[in-house]
């Protein structure tokens, strides 16, 4: 198991007389000193407006920002640094792709195919594309335990122009057959979009190996600060797109009535860049690289095995999706008969345990599986087996607190 807790100051927090047990990592992750200090160092010593000035601080901020982009490029194995665009988060990334690519490239009769389990960022955005272009949104409904079926794959047909999916669903916590989906998309000439919000922080995601056309992820779910996410896009596609936001450094020449735009990646980065966010993401990537994916995945797998084994013995508990630890990543959503998820979360919070409750920004999936709200635990590198055991122990008290016998 990894031993990194000393790096995370927030993990010493005590809530309601109990040590904090933070199990809401799919929502956001905690930050190690290495990331916190990188932000402080930038603001104390190198803060300027990047790419705009001749003075030392602008130059230093530019170097820090450009180095962060190069670090992301290596991290996801993009072929070119200009294929890495900084945005606020994965959601903004999906908005950029749907507005700047899909709304101008799709037409009536085209199909967009997504799994039913998608986050609203990869769903509401497509509803608008359909409204604007007349395209049709088609769902892959998955089987009862969250697996793709042959019927699902068959929905990717000759009319399909977009296949968009999360590498790991934030409700099911299962890895999707990404390569197969991307191959199917390319076989019919469609563009494949990989939402890496829940996978990039937890496993090696290599965009060239996947051959996805676009990929998005959020920095704050991998120890970076909120407000910095990434879009990866193949260069030819990005060059063929309209800018998303206008103004600032994204211009080439501006005249009274017309403007030509800057080259990639600047074309998509309007306004003063979030340098501290980029620097934080760079530090987070360095931190993950030091640990190594093998150790990270082994650590999270051990927590999942322990949690699933323990949860099997909690009466009246139902896990959403597969219960096979080899299919599950560190995201486990569940319901408890007779107790609404908000009540579960409130009771666990009184023991210092932070979990997510609600629809997890995936309402159509909740409606599809008749679990409008559910509970969700999610792990990261600093969680321990002892925390999992403590969570199971307190989970068993929840129904009793609500007046049930067991």
């Amino acid at each position, binding site marked *: 198991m990894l031993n990194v807790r000393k790096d995370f100051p927030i993990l010493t927090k005590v809530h*309601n*007389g109990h040590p904090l047990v933070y199990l809401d990592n799919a929502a956001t992750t905690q930050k190690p000193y290495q990331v916190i200090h990188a932000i402080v160092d930038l603001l104390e010593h190198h803060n300027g407006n990047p790419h705009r000035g001749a003075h030392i601080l602008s130059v230093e901020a530019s170097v820090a920002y450009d180095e962060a982009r190069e670090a992301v490029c290596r991290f996801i194995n993009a072929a070119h640094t200009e294929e890495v665009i900084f945005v606020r988060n994965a959601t903004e990334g999906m908005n950029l792709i749907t507005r700047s690519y899909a709304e101008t490239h799709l037409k009536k009769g085209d199909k967009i195919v997504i799994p039913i389990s998608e986050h609203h960022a990869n769903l509401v955005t497509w509803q608008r594309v359909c409204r604007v272009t007349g395209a049709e949104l088609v769902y892959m409904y998955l089987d009862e335990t969250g697996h793709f079926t042959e019927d699902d794959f068959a929905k990717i047909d000759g009319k399909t122009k977009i296949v968009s999916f999360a590498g790991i669903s934030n409700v099911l916590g299962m890895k999707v057959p990404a390569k197969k989906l991307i191959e199917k998309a390319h076989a019919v000439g469609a563009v494949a979009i990989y939402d890496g919000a829940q996978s990039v922080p937890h496993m090696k995601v290599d965009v060239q190996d996947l051959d996805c056309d676009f990929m998005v992820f959020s920095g704050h779910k991998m120890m970076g600060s909120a407000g910095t996410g990434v879009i990866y896009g193949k260069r030819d596609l990005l060059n063929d797109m309209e800018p998303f936001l206008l103004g600032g450094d994204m211009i080439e020449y501006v005249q009274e009535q017309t403007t030509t735009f800057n080259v990639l990646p600047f074309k998509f980065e309007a306004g003063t860049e979030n340098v501290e966010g980029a620097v934080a993401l760079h530090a987070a990537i360095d931190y993950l690289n030091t640990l190594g994916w093998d150790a990270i995945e082994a650590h999270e797998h051990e927590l999942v095995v322990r949690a699933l084994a323990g949860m099997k013995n909690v009466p009246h508990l139902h896990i959403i999706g597969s219960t096979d630890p080899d299919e599950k990543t560190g995201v486990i959503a569940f319901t408890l008969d007779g*107790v*609404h*998820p*908000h*009540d579960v979360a*409130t*009771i666990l919070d*009184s023991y210092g345990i932070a979990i997510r*409750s*609600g*629809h997890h920004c995936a*309402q159509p999936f*909740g409606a599809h599986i008749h679990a*409008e*709200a559910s509970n969700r635990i999610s792990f990261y590198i600093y969680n321990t087996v002892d925390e999992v055991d403590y969570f199971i122990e307190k989970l068993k008290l929840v129904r009793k*607190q*609500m*007046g049930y016998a067991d």
Partner: protein
Amino acid sequence: MENMSELYSDIILEHNQCQENKHTLPTCTLEERGHNPSCGDDITLQADIEDGMIKDAAYTGHGCAISQASADIMIDLIKGKSVEEALRLVDLFLEMIKREVTDDDALEDLEDAIALKNISNMPARVKCAVLAWHTLKDAIEKGRNK
């Protein structure tokens, strides 16, 4: 709130389990859906009003124990009362939650709803407690503007 038994008191658990007010009405003059988009609590409130009196009221939907108990308590409280009196009680409840009225004597008219007084210590749950009450207020105000 340190002690969960204070939040999930017997009164709240009883009203949460109680199904007496949880159904649709055969006839109603007022219907309003109330919804907390961030957490998914979703109720539909119905009332049958005649000559300014609430003859009957009921709700359907789903949500946490706090939102369901609060809806049940509110319906118990307003049934048989005038619309004006119901509105006064809604405002008094909202003032209690906002801690604008804290004196127990002043809150006496709220009956079982006083059990939700300490929810104001739990910012994450306030919107659960006030859902039904806001929904009723919206419904009555919309009905008036028709």
